[in-house]
């Protein structure tokens, strides 16, 4: 039974959180996440969502509250953007190292300095090394569905999950969203079973200092050093691919909506030219692919849905036949190049990939990215490939670079 509402990305995220029924919510308002925090507080104060809403005094505290509330056994939620995410940076590492299933929405916005309140993906992108699962949504329906999937994934693999969606472009734009009912969500999302609990019955101390080397406990068991514990985090991220794909498939069966698992493909079957990106820019790329096809270029799009853990194998398969690749990203690893581009090139190493890969840095600080700009850029990339121009490039799209 469908319940289609015309709502913004923030409203879709709030509805998903209401359906997931966390016990504790802690959030600090920041543009363009603010409406999400406000709608949730309305649900709680009206009694529609029974949760402890901690109106913390900073983003660092919002994630700290979530980590400890999760440790005592509650399902939790927080959300932020931009400098708010940066402010909680040390807690991102702490959450991953604690192996708590925090679900957080990052409403993507450019970081300061200088200030921007508008969309790009530098905020979540710059946190890619912290050990969180990161999923990028294309539209408001995917936001709602992905927040629900995030709880299932997080609570299965005991890793925190960041659900990212473009600020203003999605957070404030109204789209039709089919809102699932509680029964469907109940089938999909089991109750949270904490892995480690703090209770007087079991007096343990959690997350102390570790020595570098392994040491015996009082029972003579050789216990981990810091490096082993960190390896377990990496290993968990590697294994989480299976849980991510399974959650996506299971949701597709129950709801009829398949957002693609680790990555999704659009008209890639016979494509010579592949465009790629994360989030709404990838949706826009599908319009560009259609336009290119109309010109006679066999174009397609590979949408990176899960950025961490990186879909290495899926990407190698999806891009294998490409003769040219255009990577569009709203972020950059300063001092080098766009991270999606770097990660793809690393995945392709040793596979015989010969296509030139052009990296387009686009849309920083909310600069509008038009379909025709993507078309022009991708067409140029294809032309370079056809002309046998080897070598990769980084181009700042529609930016005055002197």
């Amino acid at each position, binding site marked *: 039974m469908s319940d289609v509402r015309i709502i913004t990305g923030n409203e879709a995220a709030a509805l998903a959180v209401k359906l997931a029924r966390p016990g504790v919510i802690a959030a600090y308002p920041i543009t363009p996440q603010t409406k999400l925090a406000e709608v949730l507080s309305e649900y709680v104060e009206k009694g529609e969502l029974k949760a402890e809403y901690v109106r913390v005094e900073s983003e660092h505290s919002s994630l700290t509250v979530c980590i400890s509330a999760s440790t005592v056994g509650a399902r939790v939620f927080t959300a932020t953007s931009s400098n708010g995410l940066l402010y909680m940076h040390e807690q991102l590492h702490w959450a991953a*190292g*604690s*192996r708590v299933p925090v679900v957080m929405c990052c409403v993507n916005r450019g970081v300061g300095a200088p200030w921007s309140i508008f969309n790009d993906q530098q905020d979540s992108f710059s946190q890619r090394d912290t050990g969180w699962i990161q999923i990028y949504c294309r539209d408001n329906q995917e936001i709602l569905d992905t927040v629900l999937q995030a709880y299932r994934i997080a609570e299965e693999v*005991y890793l925190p999950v960041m659900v990212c969606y473009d600020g203003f472009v999605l957070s404030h734009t109204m789209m039709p969203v089919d809102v699932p009912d509680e029964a469907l969500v109940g089938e999909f999302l089991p109750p949270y079973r904490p*892995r*480690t609990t703090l209770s007087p019955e079991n*007096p*343990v*101390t*959690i*997350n*102390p200092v*570790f020595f570098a080397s*392994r040491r015996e*406990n*009082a*029972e003579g*068991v*050789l*216990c*981990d050093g810091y490096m*082993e*514990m960190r390896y*377990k985090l990496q290993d*968990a991220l590697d294994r989480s691919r299976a849980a991510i794909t399974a959650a996506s498939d299971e949701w597709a069966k129950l709801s009829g909506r398949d957002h693609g698992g680790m990555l999704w493909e659009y008209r890639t079957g016979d494509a010579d030219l592949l465009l790629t990106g994360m989030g709404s820019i990838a949706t826009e790329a599908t319009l560009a692919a259609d336009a290119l096809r109309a010109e006679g270029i066999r174009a397609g799009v590979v949408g990176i849905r899960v950025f961490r853990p990186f879909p290495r194998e899926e990407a190698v398969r999806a891009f294998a036949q490409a003769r040219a690749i255009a990577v569009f990203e709203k972020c950059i690893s300063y001092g080098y190049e766009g991270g999606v581009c770097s990660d793809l090139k690393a995945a392709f190493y040793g596979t015989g990939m010969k296509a030139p890969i052009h990296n387009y840095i686009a849309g920083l600080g909310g600069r509008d990215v038009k379909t025709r700009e993507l078309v022009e850029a991708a067409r140029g990339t294809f032309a370079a490939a056809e002309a046998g121009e080897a070598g990769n490039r980084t181009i700042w799209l529609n930016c005055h670079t002197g």
Partner: protein
Amino acid sequence: MGKTDTNIAGICTPAPGEAGRTGEWRDARPVIDPAKCIPEVKGKPACFLCWLYCPEGVVTMTIPVVIDMEYCKGCGICAEECPPNAIQMVREAAIDE
């Protein structure tokens, strides 16, 4: 936990001696003179300031008072606070000799 470390986060279980045998930190040990110790002299619970002020909790509230030498760090607070001066800090080297 079995034979391998199955923790996915740092979970510590309680046990004494986390820092080893802290008795080895001492250069002097507390020695109680039963002829001066108030509860011993009275034959009933009294005083026990050594128990009260020990930061390590290694002094027993018993007659006679017993101090756990495996873990006593030899800070000397008990000797300093004992009202009848029943506790002397005796150098470990002197005991070894």
